[in-house]
Every structure is written in structure tokens, then in C-alpha cells.
């Protein structure tokens, strides 16, 4: 199987995905959750039917109401500026006047400073794990181009995942929250996981067939590992898809982020990491 002859096609696919991601990120940005920018999130069950009923309550308290979303037939999610404890109590009292049967599901309020911390810490975590993975792979394979290929493919996956959440945020209101950060970092590791399995096969073949060139080695390695790669992703996709469909509201976007990450990660091992290594090798020689 001569998969590496499709390198131009992979290049076009990746370039296109990256372009869409970056476009969406620049034009639509993303919907940061209160985890990042601070604010309040209040979920409750109630018989209140219209979102306009909330406005006067919040105006009276001089609290800015960002959004009121109906989660299901009888539950609401309100998002508003950070509030103090007396303000919260006043709002709850007013709401209960409208509907005595109101039951609180969740309330969260967060000052803006905590959010900025999360953002910088995520950045540090990505930088640190990239450096560690680059060093680890470079050392394990005794070849710095492998480390570079794997880490760049990982960045490719990260950008596409953030980009797709920018799109999902624009069209479906998906938010970037602390859980998304976790999903992002997991994607990075699973992307490298897949890449390493293929790299391993290249190294093994190299010792057996030292006369083959890198392109042929890569082709053989990919065709020998692609079935396991797809099968393995399939099992993870099955688990995550059942979470997206059957799991609760809270875990849905998180599971979807992981799902996108796994699919992109599987593609990038073959479609990005190896072509990059081949490109580095050609540059070198």
C-alpha cells in the first residue's frame, strides 16, 4: 500500500482544516465559559416558561443577565455577572416568588481573576508537555525529526480541536471551560500515542530492511499498523459516542471534545506526523 503518495492530499486536507479553524478562531473567537472570564451560572428546575420573566428580577438587583437557556422542558440555566452572597439570596427569593416549586440544581459564581489563571496555566501545561514529549520521543527513537514530527502533529490536532469548538460555539453555543482544557490535553497525549505506535514499526522495519528508503519504510509501517490504528480508535470512539448520546448534559461537550480529538489524532499520525518526518529527512539529505 503506497499511502505516502497521497502526501499532497493529506497536505491539502490539513491545510484546509487548519485554515477553517484559524478563520473561525479569528472571526468568531470562542465562547469562554465563566471558568475563564468569571460570572455566575445558575441551574434550576421551574415551571417558568418565558425567558423574559427573568429580566426585571436582574434589573432590580443591577446584575447583568447574560443569557437564559431552557435546558429541558422544566429546567433553566441562567448566566450572569459575578454576584455576592446577599445578591444571590435576593435573586433566589424573587425567583421563588414567581414559582414556589423552584428547585436549585447548581449555582456557581466565580471572580474574573480565577479565570485568567486557568488560561495561563493551560498554556504552561501545553508547553511543558510538548517539551517533555519532544525530548522523550527524540530520545526513544534516537532521532530528533521523530520528536519534531510527533509534536507538530500534536499542535495540528490541538488547533483543529480548538477551532472546531469555536465553530460549535458559534453555531450551537458550546463553551470553552475547564473540562475542555482537560479534553485538549488528553487529545495531545492520545495523538502522540498513535504516532508512536507507527514510529515504532518504522524503527523495527529499519533494523530489518536497512536498504529501504524512508518513504518505503513509512509505507510499509503505515500499511502494517493502520488496521490496528483504526480499530483502536473505533473502540475509543464507541465509548465516547455512547457518552455523547446517553451521558448526562454535563459530560456531553466534554465527551464530544474528546471524540473530535481522537478522530483527528488518528488521522494526524499517518497524515501529518509521518509526512513531516519524511520532509525533514529530505531537507537533511
Amino acid at each position: 500500500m503506497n499511502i505516502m503518495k497521497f502526501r499532497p492530499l493529506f497536505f491539502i486536507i490539513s491545510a484546509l482544516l487548519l485554515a477553517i479553524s484559524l478563520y473561525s478562531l479569528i472571526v468568531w473567537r470562542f465562547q469562554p465559559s465563566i471558568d475563564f472570564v468569571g460570572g455566575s451560572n445558575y441551574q434550576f428546575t421551574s415551571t417558568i416558561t418565558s425567558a423574559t420573566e427573568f429580566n426585571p428580577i436582574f434589573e432590580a438587583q443591577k446584575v447583568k443577565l447574560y443569557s437564559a437557556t431552557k435546558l429541558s422542558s422544566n429546567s433553566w440555566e441562567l448566566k450572569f455577572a459575578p454576584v455576592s452572597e446577599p445578591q444571590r439570596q435576593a435573586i433566589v427569593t424573587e425567583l421563588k416568588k414567581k414559582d414556589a416549586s423552584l428547585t436549585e440544581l447548581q449555582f456557581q459564581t466565580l471572580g474574573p481573576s480565577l479565570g485568567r489563571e486557568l488560561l495561563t496555566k493551560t498554556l504552561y501545561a501545553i508547553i511543558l508537555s510538548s517539551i517533555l514529549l519532544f525530548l522523550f520521543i527524540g530520545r526513544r527513537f534516537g532521532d530528533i525529526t521523530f520528536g519534531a514530527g510527533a509534536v507538530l502533529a500534536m499542535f495540528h490536532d490541538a488547533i483543529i480541536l480548538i477551532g472546531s469548538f469555536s465553530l460549535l460555539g458559534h453555531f450551537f453555543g458550546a463553551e470553552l471551560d475547564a473540562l475542555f482544557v482537560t479534553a485538549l490535553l488528553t487529545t495531545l497525549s492520545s495523538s502522540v500515542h498513535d504516532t508512536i505506535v507507527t514510529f515504532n514499526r518504522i524503527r523495527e522495519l529499519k533494523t530489518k530492511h536497512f536498504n529501504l528508503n524512508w518513504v518505503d519504510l513509512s509505507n510499509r509501517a503505515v500499511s502494517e499498523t493502520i488496521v490496528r490504528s483504526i480499530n483502536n480508535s473505533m473502540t475509543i470512539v464507541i465509548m465516547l459516542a455512547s457518552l455523547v448520546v446517553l451521558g448526562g448534559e454535563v459530560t456531553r461537550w466534554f465527551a464530544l471534545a474528546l471524540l473530535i480529538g481522537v478522530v483527528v489524532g488518528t488521522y494526524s499520525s499517518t497524515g501529518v506526523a509521518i509526512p513531516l518526518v519524511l520532509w525533514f529527512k529530505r531537507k537533511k539529505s
Partner: protein
Amino acid sequence: MDRLRIRKIFITILGLTFICLVINLPPELNIGGKVYRRPDFHFRLGPIDFKPNLDLRLGLDLSGGVALTYNVNTAKLGSSELAPALESLKSNIERRVNLFGISESAVQLIKEKDSHRLKIEIPGLTNVSEATDLIGQTAQLSFQSLVDLPPEATATAKPEDYFKDEGINGSHLKKATAQINPQNGQPEVSLEFNSQGTKLFAAATKANLKKPIYIFLDDYPITTPVVQEIISDGRASISGNFTLDTAKALAIQLNAGALPLPIELISQNQVGATLGKDTIQKGVFAGLVGLALVSFFMVGNYGVLGIISTVSLIIYGLITLTLYRIIPITLTFPGIVGFILSIGMAVDSNILIFARFKEEIRAGHDWNQALELAFGRAWDSIKDANAATIITALVLLNPLGWNFLNTSGMVRGFALTLILGIVIGIFTGVVVSRNLLRVFTRRRL
């Protein structure tokens, strides 16, 4: 591999599975009218008394409860006073939180660049204002003496009946200082009362000569000095088992009357119990459906091998849940997702091995040979690939508590379940599957 050794390993695996299965059973099982109780695994081995609590710990997001984050204002303190002040703030608040009587509540001090934070988690509590009121209140200092109860009253006496409040509280205290006693070199806390406090204290020491006086903070005894003489100059010292730091901390506490440092609520999170229950139910259901689908997929692709890997997946699930109970790991939303994801990843080592096995069969090896070769050769990839995942998971877990990395419990909980999943997944995927296959192929041949 000789037969005997394989059989030994196989029996060990069976035993391990059985123990894990028993641990994961509900505490009481009702089958056909008969009630079976889970053994409580209470071991006594010489001085070691081992009685594990085997219930799954649920995080705040699953059990419901209140999480509060306070910013600690340290502007007024020099750096030398800071550490004892923070410690006493923490113990003060811990004492107040414990009044709720919820054993899993946690108070954590977090240093964030130049500021200090206090994170308080009280699972099961639904009323936030109850918590904020209690935590932010002014500390109540009181001096109490013992009452000699007549014997006929002891039967009905409540604990508070044994104490008599001497009417002295924090407002009567002029100043408290930590100092070293020049006579014996021990750290102690000296108290200086105002004029009214001096009178009250003189009366109290007179009434309780050679008897102990209990000093309470927030209804909690902090020290019990025995009155040696009548003190009428309004000066007293409390000695006890103090280090210089604890003496300083107590002095700060007494001086402040309130909390040793001012705190300000910056974030609160309150989760109702119903939301968590719903998510657990849906998560467990999704996990089971996923597991069933993965099993179909594996059997469809790899036949007999698929059945073996399904069995080792179930063993994987049992071992993982058992470790969650023993370590213990507090399960959160992302933790559950991490667990479900790790099931998908645990199959990976099996798929690597089985794919290799098919290759070796094609290369002309027989069943047994191909099997041993596949396990040996796939091990290299399994090792490297999982090492990479562990590296990332470690960055997320931040085991050294580095400040520039994430310290949030949610992310760390996810990372911990992921690492556990990888390690156990390798064990079941390689050791368990391999030995199950060895046993069953011997029979077949």
C-alpha cells in the same frame, strides 16, 4: 512456560478477580429473599489494625454540596508572621466547618503567586448562606470553669451543664503576646485584660484556685491552664505544649477576636444532589452500553481472541473500581469520563497484540508460537505509546503541586483516573490476556 506455572498464574488471576468482585458488590445484596452482606475486610495483624472504608467517594459535583473559595487578605502582616497566621486561620475555619458534622469536608490553603486562597468543600450541604455565615463569623472566646454537679444530677446532665461561663470573652482582652518564659525557656502566651476583664478574671481565679479554667474558642477548648494563684493585676499567661509558632498563632487568634486574617469570598459553587445522581446513572448506563458495543466489535474482528479481551476488560473494570475504593480516589464528572475513556484505551494493548498475532500467523507460525511472538513484539509499542500518555497525564496531575500548573481538583482527578487506567490497562491487556490465552489454547490443542 511449564504447565504448573501457567496454572498458578491463572489461579492467581481468578482469585484477584473474585476478591475485586466481592469488594465491588453492594454492602447488602438481596437475592431471592436472602440477604447477603459484603465482608468488611477487617484484618488484625499484630499491631496493624486494617479496616478499610470501601465505599466509593463521590466528589462534590456528584454528591452535591457547597464549595467556597476565599481570598485571604495578608496585606497587614509581615512575612515572619504570615505562616503561623495562615495556619491558625486554617485551623480556625476547619473547626467551624466541622460543626456541620460532615466528615468529608475539606479546607485547603492554596498559594497563588502573591495571594493566598482558602478553598472549602462541604459535601452534602445545600444551604450556602448557612456556610458563609458560619465561616465568616467573629470568633467567640470564652473562659469557663468546671461545675461540681451533685451526684443525683449527673444522670441527666448535658455536656454544657458541667461548665460555667465566667463571663469573660474576647472583648475583655487588651492584648495577647507570644513570649518565651524566662524561667524555663518554654514558649507561652501572655494575656493582658482591660479593667473590666481584670475584675472578672480576678473573681474567676479566686473561685477556681487550683482548679482548671477552660479557654474555649468557638465552643472548642484550646487550652486548659490550672489556676496557681489569684490573679488581680489583669495579667496571665497560658503555658502548655506550645512551640514558638503555635504560641504565635494562638496569640494572633486571641488578638483578632475574629479570624486571624480577613477573608473575602471570591467564588462559590453549589451543586444540588439530584444533578449528580442523574449524571452518575446516565454515565454508568453509557459506560455499560459502550462496553457491550466494544465487546461485539472485538469478537467480530478477532473471534475467540475477542472473547478473551472482553473477559480481561471486565477484569480491568473490576480492578480499577476496587482501587478507586481502596486508595481512595474521589470520583468526579471528569473522573467518570476518564474511566470510560480508559476502557476504550485499555483495549488498545489487546488490539496491538492481536493485530501482531494475525501477522505472525500469516508469516507461517503456529498458534502458540504466534501468540508468544505477538506479545513479545507488541510490548515495545505498548510501552512507548503509554509512556507518552503518562507524561501528559503527569503534567495534568501536577504531583509536585507546582504553582504555574493546574491545581484544580477536577483536572487532577481526571489525570489520576487516566494514569491508573493506563497502568491497570497494561496489566490486564498484557498479563491477564496472555495467561488466559495460554490456558485456553493448551486445552484446545
